[in-house]
């Protein structure tokens, strides 16, 4: 085995061939055995293998794109399980985007936010209220529900509204440090849920605990998005933008200031980082991803009610970030995928299997121990185990290493050019 891995290391061609073979085999098995969840999961696993290959980044993106856009929808499309596979993939996408948002707040800026699902709720309700007749109760003008074509604008609106609430939450919280922050955000998450649950009087805005039913599906040029396989592509497109944005932020000046604030606030301030602005930006950007996905969630479910946004959801997203690795983008994507699939597929499958066994009389299996109900136990255990034994997560975050010498030369050259070209603007003002 060791010989094999050592041979593979550095041999890009062999890696490429093996990867393509793997994708081919798994997709063929899924194509032939449609009902096999294992085959579907193994096909998804190819993306993780892709991450560990040593191919150039552009090629990796290309292969990931081909697998996600082409292979997965195509090979799963012929069987009866098509929509459920696509449903899982869509939900994974939604959670990945949210986990990436929380990763900015917790992983990069080091602000523990335990009410993150509130922003998701805000996004969902933003679209939900206007895409049902609900808005007619308080809007003085316009006809509601809005058509499905407004969905595309609402992705942006949801993004901005969530970001706005992120800033609103951030402002009081900025005076509070570390652990107090966790409590305040926890309180904020609960407040949002209680408010949505009770905002059916005096003016009926959210329809209270009844929730908003029959939210308009998205529509473009008369083409309606109703099924999970259609939403899959919307989620994929948004997710692509989110990942792109996160990668750009991570190594930009903002990203570096987030990390500095995380390591030591006072030291960060003393090197000229604007503490308030940096933290607020983290809150706003993290929240905005969640808000966008909230809009998609509302349109996909066509039903929004406060029970979708409990504390358990916030903790689930936190578990994704911790499991994958705080501050590490590939890690968080992996964490989100693992937890969502665990939640949607594995736990229910295992529960069904155990129930079947106890029906057949093989074992007597009490209902109370059903794995589908044990989410809290499993998540709690994951949090403790990872906190103690592997706080850096499954795929630890990496920082780029720069060659000091070449950097020095570069800056010298850079400075010379600058001095000759640009006069100091400070004196002109």
């Amino acid at each position: 085995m060791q010989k094999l891995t050592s041979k593979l290391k550095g041999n890009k061609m062999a890696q490429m061939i093996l990867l393509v073979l793997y994708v081919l085999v798994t997709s063929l098995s899924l194509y032939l055995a449609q009902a096999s969840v294992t085959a579907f999961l193994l096909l998804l696993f190819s993306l993780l293998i892709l991450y560990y290959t040593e191919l150039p980044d552009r090629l990796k993106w290309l292969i990931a794109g081909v697998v996600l856009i082409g292979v997965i929808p195509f090979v799963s499309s012929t069987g009866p399980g098509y929509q459920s596979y696509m449903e899982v993939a869509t939900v994974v996408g939604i959670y990945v985007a949210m986990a990436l948002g929380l990763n900015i707040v917790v992983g990069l800026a080091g602000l523990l936010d335990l009410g993150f699902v509130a922003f998701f709720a805000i996004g969902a309700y933003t679209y939900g209220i206007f895409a049902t007749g609900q808005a007619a109760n308080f809007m003085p003008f316009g006809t509601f529900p809005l058509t499905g074509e407004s969905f595309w604008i609402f992705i942006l609106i949801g993004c901005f509204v969530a970001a706005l609430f992120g800033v609103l939450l951030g402002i009081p919280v900025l005076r509070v440090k570390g652990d107090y922050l966790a409590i305040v955000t926890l309180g904020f998450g609960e407040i949002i849920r209680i408010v949505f649950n009770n905002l059916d009087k005096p003016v009926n805005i959210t329809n209270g605990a009844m929730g908003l039913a029959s939210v308009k599906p998205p529509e473009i040029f008369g083409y309606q998005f109703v099924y999970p396989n259609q939403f899959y592509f919307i989620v994929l497109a948004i997710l692509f933008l989110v990942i792109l944005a996160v990668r750009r932020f991570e190594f930009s000046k903002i990203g570096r200031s987030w990390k500095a604030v995380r390591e030591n606030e006072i030291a960060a301030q003393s090197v000229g980082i604007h503490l308030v602005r940096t933290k607020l930006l983290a809150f706003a950007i993290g929240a905005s991803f969640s808000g966008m996905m909230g809009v998609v969630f509302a349109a996909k479910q066509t039903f929004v009610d406060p029970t979708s946004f409990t504390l358990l959801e916030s903790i689930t997203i936190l578990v994704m970030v911790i499991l994958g690795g705080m501050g590490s983008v590939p890690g968080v994507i992996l964490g989100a995928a693992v937890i969502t699939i665990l939640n949607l597929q594995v736990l229910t499958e295992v529960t069904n299997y155990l129930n079947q066994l106890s029906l057949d009389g093989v074992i007597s299996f009490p209902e109370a121990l059903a794995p589908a109900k044990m989410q809290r136990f499993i998540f709690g255990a994951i949090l403790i185990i990872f906190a103690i034994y592997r706080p850096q997560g499954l795929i630890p975050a990496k920082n780029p290493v720069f060659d000091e010498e070449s950097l020095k030369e570069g800056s010298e050259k850079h400075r010379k050019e600058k001095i000759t070209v640009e006069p100091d603007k400070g004196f002109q003002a």
Partner: protein
Amino acid sequence: MLAEILQSLPQVLVDGIALGAIYAVIALGYTMVYGILELINFAHGEIFMTGAFIGVAMLILMTGMGWLAAMPAVLALILVLVVTSILTGFMGVGIERMAYRPLRNSPKLITLISAIGVSFLLQDLVRFITEYKRGNYILTGPSMFNEKFSIKFSSISSSFSDAFFKTSTLILIVAVVIMMVGLDFFVNKTKWGMAMRAVAQDRETASLMSINVNKVISLTFFIGSALGGATGVLFAVQYGTIDPYIGFILGLKAFTAAVLGGIGNIRGAMAGGLMLGILEMFAAANLQLLTGGIFGAEYKDVFAFAILIIVLIFKPEGLFGKAVTEKV
């Protein structure tokens, strides 16, 4: 409007003091641990909840064996309180040993995450044990101490109405007062209490003065958790029905109380708990009246969190705490 508020005031005070007493004792657990480790022990609310379940389970067991009828009810309650508090006390020590001690030198964020993990783990553990044994995770204890009394506030002035309370309320308040006085005595007058205060001030220096820091931290967790568990039993007796998720929101509010009184300050936590209890009951009774029907009693949780946020913005050190400047 004022007349109506005055009318209900005596009842609000009685209910508020009962609820506030519970908040106060749980807040003690938060504040003691925070004072020593600077860690929000998220699991503390769950220890309270577990205490409630252990207590109710024991009471049900004793009823089944006929012991409850054989001995005076107060004696039975004291027995249950003592056993529960010892059990939850050791549970607290165990949690500290397993989930917090390995992380004492890692970043605070990691310890906090571990604490949240413990809290979730305990919730589900209690959930499935109860569901496994009883088929349902919502538990109702045997009805005890239900005799009703009234205080004739109306004889003082006609603008008040009478306040009613049960025997269990009286027991709750007496027990809480005993616990608080006992703790205050322990912390301020005994040698171990002095060691606790020393560790809270400066862990390293305390260890140089031949104080066994680990032992003191374990003791703190033991006392805090024992008090929390005992309060859980009192809560179950007072309010009747419990479920595994009561601990979280109640713990959150107790933490609010601890912040209100100044975190790390034991007497502050007691005062903060009482204040929060009375304020919350006041809000539940009068919010509808005060806002002209826009906000009803369902916003009382929002009200409690709003207090927390306001205190943290304007007076983060709490009402009775000292402001600390951070040094690099």
